């Protein structure tokens, strides 16, 4: 059991090496980013939940027309874009930390992180495209408006 004892931080047997001399600053930026993005996300996500769940008919109101109504305004487009990017970067970085903590084998860690980064990239690109290519009046292959769309008037 002796091997289970870990020296307390700042004890003489442990040296703190806080990135003295030119190493990568990536981890420090990641740490700071988690905190800055967190503060902004509180506002963005609480606002999102309030408008989508608490106002009017709450969840019952959500359908294609609801989304069309919100994304007709650049305000909500930018809101959702920021929320998408910040939440995905924050969440991906958080899960990266967790993988580093629990996956002990180099190979496992690499595979898990590769899957994580690919998934994150796909979701961020898809989500961004969805916000900016949204069309309230989509047409089918022969140019006829699809049912349920909003085509003027």
């Amino acid at each position, binding site marked *: 059991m002796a*091997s*289970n*004892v*870990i020296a*307390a*931080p700042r004890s003489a047997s442990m040296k703190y090496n806080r990135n003295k001399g030119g190493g990568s600053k990536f981890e420090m930026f990641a740490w700071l980013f988690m*905190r800055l993005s*967190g*503060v902004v*996300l*509180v506002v963005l*996500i*609480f606002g999102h*939940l309030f408008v989508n*769940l*608490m106002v009017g*008919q*709450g*969840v*019952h109101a*959500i*359908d*294609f*027309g609801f*989304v*069309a109504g919100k994304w007709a305004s650049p305000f909500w487009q930018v809101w959702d874009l920021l929320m*998408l990017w910040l*939440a*995905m970067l924050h*969440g*991906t970085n*958080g*899960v990266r930390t*967790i993988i580093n903590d629990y996956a*002990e084998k180099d190979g496992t860690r690499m595979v898990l992180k590769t899957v994580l980064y690919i*998934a994150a990239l796909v*979701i961020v690109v*898809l*989500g961004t*495209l*969805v916000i900016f*290519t*949204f*069309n309230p009046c*989509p047409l089918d292959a022969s140019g006829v408006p*699809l*049912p*349920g*769309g909003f085509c003027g008037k």
Partner: protein
Amino acid sequence: MPTKPAGTLYRGREGMWSWVGHRVTGVVIFFFLLVHVLDTSLVRVSPEAYTSVIGTYKIPLMGLGEAGLVAAIVFHAFNGLRIIAVDFWKKGPKYQRQLLWGVLALWVIVMVPFLIRHLSIVFGGH
């Protein structure tokens, strides 16, 4: 056989459990968000695809799921602010335990009205 010493600096109590809670809620929210962006992307398939899939969510079971998700988010958000206070506020580390009680109090203050409103929308018929 563990390959590393299984020791930890945490000795249970508030500090450790708030960390466990923060980690678990963070992962839950992350996986929710992956699915959430996928289902929202159905607006680019067709209006009916989106509205019908979202329609299948409007059942009481999903209403409870949404309540659970919001409970997780609200905890993660307030505890995240607590972590930030512990890191940046001079007295933060000293009062980390009191801050956690503050987090839990705020969580109750937000969740009670939220649940009353959301569950009456979900179960209130339409």
